[in-house]
């Protein structure tokens, strides 16, 4: 048994998600990612269950572990009760812990998710936060969203929200004590550690790629690069 396989076994989702796969392909048949990406969850499960560390390292560095959309359609159907989606989540976690994620175009994108969603969670208490969802970053949100952004305070009041207000309600200001509790939970349970790993491995990679990762936040060369780059080989 390989060492990396042992690492995966530490992940509770791995234990829940893998029981002797028989390669029937029911997961790939229903997988939205397999429809549009060069992706085959069946093959990934088969590689993982081989327990071969070299092959697992290749996976951790690969593009393919980042194609899954975690819809979990695979779990509904597997005749052996496996959840390839959970196995993918365990692989992604390990890839970030060990720094392999920066070796793939899709993996490098984790820094954007950390810097946007990850920071919103800690700083606002929300996974998504209105002020940051710009039409520049999200042109597909369209003209109506542009209008929403321009009139957000009045609109939320008109609809009965509590934008940045005290007490309960929509998009209320989450009290500082609550945010501090959230941060302590992240410290105690390894959330902050994960964030730091994503940062430090990415910083190293940015230097290697000769892309600027300053200033902090998302307005820099490396972030713009990983947010928009698609080499076009993912669905061929």
């Amino acid at each position, binding site marked *: 048994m390989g060492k990396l396989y042992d690492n995966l076994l530490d992940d509770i989702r791995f234990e829940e998600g893998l029981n002797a796969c028989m390669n029937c392909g029911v997961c790939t048949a229903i997988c939205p990612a397999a429809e*549009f990406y060069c992706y085959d969850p069946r093959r990934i499960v088969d590689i993982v269950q081989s327990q071969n560390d070299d092959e697992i390292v290749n996976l951790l560095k690969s593009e393919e572990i980042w194609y899954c959309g975690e819809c979990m359609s695979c779990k509904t159907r597997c005749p052996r009760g496996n959840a390839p989606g959970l196995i993918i989540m365990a692989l992604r976690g390990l890839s970030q812990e060990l720094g392999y994620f920066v070796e793939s175009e899709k993996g490098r994108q984790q820094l954007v998710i950390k810097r946007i969603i990850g920071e919103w*969670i800690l700083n606002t208490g929300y*996974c998504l936060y209105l002020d940051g969802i710009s039409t520049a970053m999200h042109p597909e949100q369209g003209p109506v969203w542009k209008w929403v952004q321009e009139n957000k305070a009045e609109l939320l009041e008109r609809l009965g929200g509590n934008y940045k207000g005290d007490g309960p309600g929509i998009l209320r200001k989450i009290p500082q004590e609550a*945010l501090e509790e959230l941060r302590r*939970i992240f410290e105690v349970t390894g959330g902050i550690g994960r964030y730091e790993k994503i940062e430090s491995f990415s910083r190293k990679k940015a230097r290697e790629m000769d892309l600027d990762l300053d200033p902090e936040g998302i307005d820099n060369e490396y972030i713009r690069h990983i*947010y928009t780059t698609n080499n076009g080989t993912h669905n061929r």
Partner: protein
Amino acid sequence: MKYDGKRAIWSEYQKEIADDNYFYVRSCVRQNFFPGSEVTFLRIMKQILGKDIYEHPCHTTCSGIGYHGDVVPVETTMTVVARQFALMTEAGYKNYLPSCITSFGLYTEILDTWHHFPEVEERVRRQLKKATGREFEIPSNLAHASDVIYKFRKEIAAKARYKLINKNTGAPLKVVDHIGCHYAKMFPSKGVGGAEYPYVLAGMIEEWGGEVVDYPERRHCCGFGFRQYLIQANRGFSVACSKEKFESMKPFKPDMIITNCPGCPMFLDRWQYVINEMEGKRYGQNGEGIPVFTYEEVAGLVLGFDPWDLGLQMHQTDCEPILDKIGIEYSPEDKYNTGKNRKKQEVNTLIHA
């Protein structure tokens, strides 16, 4: 298609849904993109149904999008969830009611994990105590907000002002239901009607006068896929998934789409605009688009709430064609009237694009 076959399956998936005293937990996506829906939900619960429903000001995100974006570790998310349970326990509630499907799926998954691995639950309890000093009890009932609307669909129908019926022809509207993936795909027994033929929205449609339209890609994900939408470089996948659904439902000529997941209606709404922009392709009758609604919005509409109180002005794909079809009264001038900003505004929706 044989309706009785579905009925037989529905009867096998009856989940327990608490009938009062709920601890309500908000959805990040809903609050940002469909604030009117959560407001409407609470209005229905309190004013129409007279239920006790409590929202704790200190509750936060469940961290679900971070978890499924793979930047937040499972241990962290489990402990964030434990904190939400602690707030519920402290407030004296036992019936946990999330507004979000990602959250609902996450709570279901975590409770299942704790059930099978009690040592994990013990560890999370220690972590929560250490980080916040809080303790929690496991909810005695976990239901998604759409489950509750489903449960009271008949009461809503009894008080309805409109039906999902074409007022000119008297024919029921053809309604496509789209269920959030994490509602029942992971744990079919936790969803009304199970994973393959969910009944949670179909039950509402039927009760409120509409006709449920089944189509081949009904079960397909909208394409959000967390990182697949969050990163611009991946969005080609995201839009392709929704497009596949539109193409598949097209021959059935649906009048509208109803959803129970916070994000799906936003994507199904916006991607129609993008597909038109990119490929000049429009869906729906006369190319007007297929209006996409949350179940709260549809409940509000049949109850006769003002469409602009529901927040339908935030849709990119116009909802007016269906309002006209049902015969719902509304003021076109008021659409973009925000109260303070009373000047008439022009905003390019799908029809005008």
